């Protein structure tokens, strides 16, 4: 069976958007711009007028147990993220040894690309540096900085080595996971329902402290996985004036969900970084429309299969689905003034972290892409898997993975 996808918007090699038809056969793109004359009974036609085709979407995910890697990759790519980077999992911290890096890289997926970012510290402990150069020699694309940031001396040491190696850095959410003895969130809702969390000022101070050290020790590319407070992202944005290779990720959920929704301890809304107040959410939205963010991140973890309900404190974050991620992200973009090329860039890795081509599709490429509605239309009611009903515009029009329509 052949598939024809018609009237979709495709970005070409000159980064311009064209309306193009696609022909898909045997899992590959066999035609761009035309539909061959075929018997109608052997061809399925999908009209995706007003949708943007994204074949090279990217996101960061925490590494699963190596035994789960294949199903993990299937779930990620089958949900529309075709390229990804794995980060050391804070719980298992599997990417702190060269052999682990080599083992993961030997399980490369058939389509798409994946990168590994090695753990800066051994065994997830904040007091012992990993062998950073050996990890990069083993194939790590860069170094992930997690809790090490809390130890200033070790951070300076790590940055010195990283600068010598010349590899990029990914910085995790600058809030600790909401378990253990973190102090009280200053937010009204956190006070009301008695949860502990971390305030926007905590996140801002960590960003500020981190960047003040960074500029003295290195010039390598830096990517912040997810920033949730306007003050922190403004600070990073200003920092870009003197330190050019720096990028910031944003969870789209933080632009439509506020901590008001936590009044009934909805543990599906446990995020790291945590949801903020409505006014902070609105300020963050302003930073987004002002172009202070570089890419969307889903904050999703396919490895969490635990289905038994847990109290808020014992729930791991990252339970939201990639389908919700694309719905919310396309809603935000369809309501924004960004042009189509900019929209596509929100789903790509920042340029220094990219080892695949941009969101372009050509002859003989694997037929894997997601098509998102790019025009604003009347909002429709959506039941997100987070237990929240909301009105969204945009949305997922078509998802094709290895030639199969999902």
């Amino acid at each position, binding site marked *: 069976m052949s598939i024809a996808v018609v009237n979709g918007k495709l970005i070409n090699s000159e980064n311009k958007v064209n309306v193009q038809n696609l022909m898909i056969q045997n899992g590959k793109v066999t035609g761009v711009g035309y539909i061959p004359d075929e018997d109608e009974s052997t061809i399925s036609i999908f009209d995706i007028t007003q949708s943007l085709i994204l074949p090279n979407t990217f996101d960061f995910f925490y590494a699963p147990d190596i035994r789960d890697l294949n199903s993990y990759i299937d779930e990620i790519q089958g949900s529309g993220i075709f390229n990804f980077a794995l980060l050391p999992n804070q719980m298992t911290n599997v990417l702190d040894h060269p052999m682990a890096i080599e083992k993961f890289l030997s399980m490369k997926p058939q389509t798409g690309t994946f990168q590994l970012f090695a753990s800066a510290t051994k065994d997830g402990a904040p007091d012992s540096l990993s062998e950073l150069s050996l990890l990069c020699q083993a194939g790590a694309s860069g170094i992930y900085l997690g809790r090490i940031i809390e130890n200033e001396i070790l951070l300076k040491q790590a940055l010195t080595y990283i600068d010598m190696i010349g590899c990029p850095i990914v910085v995790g959410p600058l809030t600790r996971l909401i378990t253990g003895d973190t102090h009280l969130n200053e937010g009204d809702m956190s006070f009301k329902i008695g949860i502990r969390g971390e305030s926007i000022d905590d996140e801002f101070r960590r960003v500020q402290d981190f960047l003040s050290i960074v500029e003295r020790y290195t010039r390598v590319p830096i990517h912040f996985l997810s920033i949730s407070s306007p003050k922190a992202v403004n600070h990073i944005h200003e920092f870009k004036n003197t330190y050019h290779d720096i990028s910031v990720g944003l969870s789209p959920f933080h632009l439509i969900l506020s901590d008001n929704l936590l009044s009934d301890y909805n*543990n599906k809304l446990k995020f790291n970084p945590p949801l903020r107040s409505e006014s902070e959410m609105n300020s963050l939205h302003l930073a987004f429309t002002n172009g202070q963010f570089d890419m969307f991140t889903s904050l999703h973890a396919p490895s969490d299969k635990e289905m038994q309900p847990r109290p808020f404190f014992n729930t791991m974050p990252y339970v939201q689905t990639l389908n919700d991620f694309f719905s919310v992200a396309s809603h935000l973009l369809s309501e924004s003034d960004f042009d189509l090329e900019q929209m596509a860039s929100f789903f790509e890795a920042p340029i220094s972290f990219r080892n695949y081509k941009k969101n372009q599709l050509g002859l003989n490429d694997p037929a894997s892409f997601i098509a998102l509605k790019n025009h604003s239309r009347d909002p429709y009611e959506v039941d997100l898997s987070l237990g929240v009903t909301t009105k969204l515009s945009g949305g997922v029009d078509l998802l094709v993975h290895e030639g199969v329509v999902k």
Partner: protein
Amino acid sequence: MTKRIKHCIGLRFFKSNEINSFLDLAASFKANHNFKSLSSKTVAHVFFEPSTRTRLSFEMATQKLGAFPMVLDVNHSSLTKGETLVDMMKNIEALGVDALVIRHCDGGVPYFLSQNLSVPVVNAGDGYHEHPSQGLLDLFTLRETLGDLKGKHILILGDIMHSRVAKSNLWGLKTLGAKVTVSGPPNLIPSYVRSLGVDVSLDLDEILPKVDAVNVLRIQFERQHGIALPSMKEYRNLFGLTKDRQMLLKESAMVLHPGPINRGVELDSEVADGKFNVILNQVEHGVYVRMAILHKLMEAM
């Protein structure tokens, strides 16, 4: 028909008529000590945090109602073998208990269990969230002496930020129409309280003569995480209800404290044992209020 109250998770969930129905029932229990309304029922008491007053008070309330208190020692429970909280509680429920009294160090755990169990759940204190039975017994003690609390001026003194007792008092007092002022170190008073219509006073000497009662909160050393207070001495000087300060109170004023008291810090011994104190009355009333909670939740099961 009055809607049955299913759980007691926090006073923020109750309307004034519901709070008053607990207080009225507690008053009838105080007047009539023999009231075995729950014979043949079993109440599980599960405390994940240390407790003396609340635990014993709930056990006594259970026994006075004729019910059997099934007390679980969590240090020797199956949780230590890796069982999940839900599995453990569902097993306890399957044993045939009729209600669950739970204290937990994490806010939201009683609410979570109320959504996952079919028996009534009573919150005996959860993290930074609420301590509704303490809130109700404070209201009961105040109402018994002051009458209708509408318009009465109550001062809550101490660490508002970390205190679950403060929160239950705030919701309960505001719901019953009292005028509420809070006082304490500014970093321990969240700005949110002003949005509830609560006044903030940082000058204890100025506010004390104006109030009908002071509820002095315990300074919770175990919850400070080293961030809140520069020194106990400074705290006592600025916000302690000292022997000298008690002279500023009205002759009819009351001093409450949820216990245990840090004598010489938030409360001087002369005040804790002095003429204004109703602290032991609170302890006594705790039993009646907890009887009322258990009775109301279990009466129509």
